[in-house]
């Protein structure tokens, strides 16, 4: 049996989401922009899905939801569109040291375009340093983008405080909610977000569709220009089957989240407790308690992450690593380095992300198989200290 514990990378589409989508490939193929009956029907469908997504984050006006092609586009629209719109007010943007790669590369681009970027450092658990954050704010600051939680180590940020500080300073505040979308409720009514990036696949909807919540009154320049759909903010023919699926997925997630996170937390804690207890020189990355319900991120001394992934693959377990050897740049995870880990420590990291279809038996499989894998790799590593090798030799596998 395959054990899939890499939900942060991709999620399957929920069965009832798929069913809802199917008619929109053939029978209900209309374009909401058309004026005939088929078009009108499509408009109703589109607006119904928009309401569902708005409801998911408690947005008061459905029209504040702008559909995009996914999380990356939403981030581009928020940051590039926002920076270009407000550049007359200043050229300074604040983000954090541990943002998702899409945010990192967007601000890198903006930096080349003349914007100044400051990244708020984090503590060893990956939490934003609020004092340093406050000190970074200047008169020229026009935009702040900080994710609700880390996609890698799962640490949850004090987002309410961060957004309040942004609001007090009258600075546009964007959050990338993707990592936490399936396990932390978002309430834009309660927390004063100006922009929120959302992804459909991260709540078990189809890939290729996402949204940007844009609070009433906030304007951004479009990054995709064309026929003027979505109030001219995001042109392009509507991906109606995707939008319908996203709406349904949002509806289900809103309902299921409390019980789902309760269950995942139980599994997560079981996994963390067992791994730390049974495997010597193993550590948890990220915050011990303020972490996403589906995230268990470990580090093991003396071994390297890609080897771990390959060995896990052999026993049909899917996981992820922040090791350099698995990346395109041969650089270890910037998030782990920002948390103060040494390069050699970051290489030995292993990330499990749980999801809707995770069973307790999946966790049990990891608990049984992982120690053996770690032992095999440590037995051939020149870094493993002799006393640990001796200990391994004394106990039978």
């Amino acid at each position, binding site marked *: 049996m395959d054990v899939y514990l890499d939900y942060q990378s991709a999620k399957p589409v929920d069965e009832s989401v798929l069913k809802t989508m199917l008619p929109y490939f053939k029978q209900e193929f209309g374009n909401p922009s058309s004026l005939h009956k088929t078009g009108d029907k499509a408009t109703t469908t589109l607006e119904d899905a928009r309401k569902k997504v708005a409801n998911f984050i408690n947005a008061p006006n459905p029209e504040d939801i702008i559909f995009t092609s996914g999380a990356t586009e939403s981030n581009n629209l928020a940051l590039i569109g926002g920076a270009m719109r407000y550049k007359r007010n200043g050229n300074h943007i604040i983000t954090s040291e541990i943002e998702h790669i899409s945010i990192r590369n967007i601000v*890198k681009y903006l930096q080349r375009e003349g914007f100044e970027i400051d990244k708020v450092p984090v503590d060893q658990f990956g939490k934003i340093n609020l004092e340093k954050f406050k*000190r970074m704010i200047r008169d020229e600051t026009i935009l702040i983008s900080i994710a609700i939680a880390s996609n890698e180590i799962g640490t949850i940020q004090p987002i309410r405080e961060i957004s309040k500080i942004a609001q007090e300073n009258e600075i546009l505040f964007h959050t990338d909610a993707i990592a936490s979308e399936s396990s932390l409720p978002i309430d834009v009514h309660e927390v004063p977000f100006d922009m929120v990036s959302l992804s459909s696949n991260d709540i078990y909807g189809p890939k290729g569709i996402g949204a940007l919540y844009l609070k009433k009154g906030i304007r951004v320049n479009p990054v995709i220009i064309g026929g003027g759909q979505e109030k001219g903010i995001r042109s392009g023919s509507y991906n109606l089957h995707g939008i319908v699926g996203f709406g349904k997925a949002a509806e289900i997630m809103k309902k299921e989240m409390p019980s789902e996170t309760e269950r995942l937390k139980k599994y997560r804690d079981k996994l963390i407790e067992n791994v730390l207890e049974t495997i010597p020189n193993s550590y948890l990355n990220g915050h011990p308690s303020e972490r996403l319900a589906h995230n268990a991120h470990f580090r093991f001394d003396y071994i390297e992450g890609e080897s771990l992934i390959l060995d896990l693959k052999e026993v049909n377990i899917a996981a992820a690593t922040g090791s350099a*050897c698995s990346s395109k740049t041969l650089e270890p995870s910037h998030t782990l380095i920002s948390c103060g880990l040494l*390069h050699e420590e970051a290489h030995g990291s292993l990330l499990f992300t749980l999801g809707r279809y995770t069973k307790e038996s999946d966790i049990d499989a990891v608990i049984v198989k992982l120690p053996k894998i770690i032992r095999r790799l440590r037995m051939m590593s*020149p*870094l493993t200290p002799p006393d640990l090798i001796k200990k391994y030799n004394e106990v039978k596998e």
Partner: protein
Amino acid sequence: MKSTQYTEKVMDHFRNPRNVGVIEDPDGYGKVGNPVCGDLMEIFIKVGKNDENKETIEDIKFRTFGCGSAVATSSMVTEMAMGKTLDEAYKITRNDVADELEGLPPIKMHCSNLAADALKAAIDNYRLGSDSEVEVEGHCKTIDIKVILGLDEFEGKGVYKNVDDLEDFRNKRTLIVDTGEESLELAMKLTEYTGRVILVTPSNKTPGNDDLKQKLKFSDVKILRESELIEVKGTTDVEQVIIHDLDEDERYELFVDSVIILE
């Protein structure tokens, strides 16, 4: 190509590595790589003689910390070298190992294909009694300081080769080049005067000795690792610098008010 898209042969050597372990009291020992970069391998050899009275590799063992290709290349090189004469074994190249494994993903060719170097180091160690730890070029990058354009032109106009009064830097965006411990200490001191101190270092980790490293990590100094300063620009005074990102081999501009490069 994915960095983990390995051939069946690589996977076989990764799953069932040949000749893993340690030779107690070896005739030759070689070690290459560095855990910071993510690869470290050791090779142990025992030397014997064949019928023609030529020195051969009678036994060979390895230990490796690293990714799939690091393990597989180590295993493969031991298999290739076993029983060969020292002269033959010495001729095994990184490419030979990769070919024998039916190829490696391009990104792994340079970083995780050090086994042939480890073998050479072990043979050298036996023959010459040389240092068995070898620095391998192109692995973790080593950088030579090149000529920085505009440095002399802007001296006294934002470029400092020595620092007398830290007050000069109050609230200035200051870039400081890592020229050793003195520059690291200065960078940290400067954070009391300005919130924007950028340290440029060619190293891929936080520079300095353990104590400095720790302090730097928790200081407000922004560190640009694996980077070098190439040019200082401005109209009359320093306005911006060009930084070379050594990792991505990319150049970009940074706006700064002053540049410190201690002599």
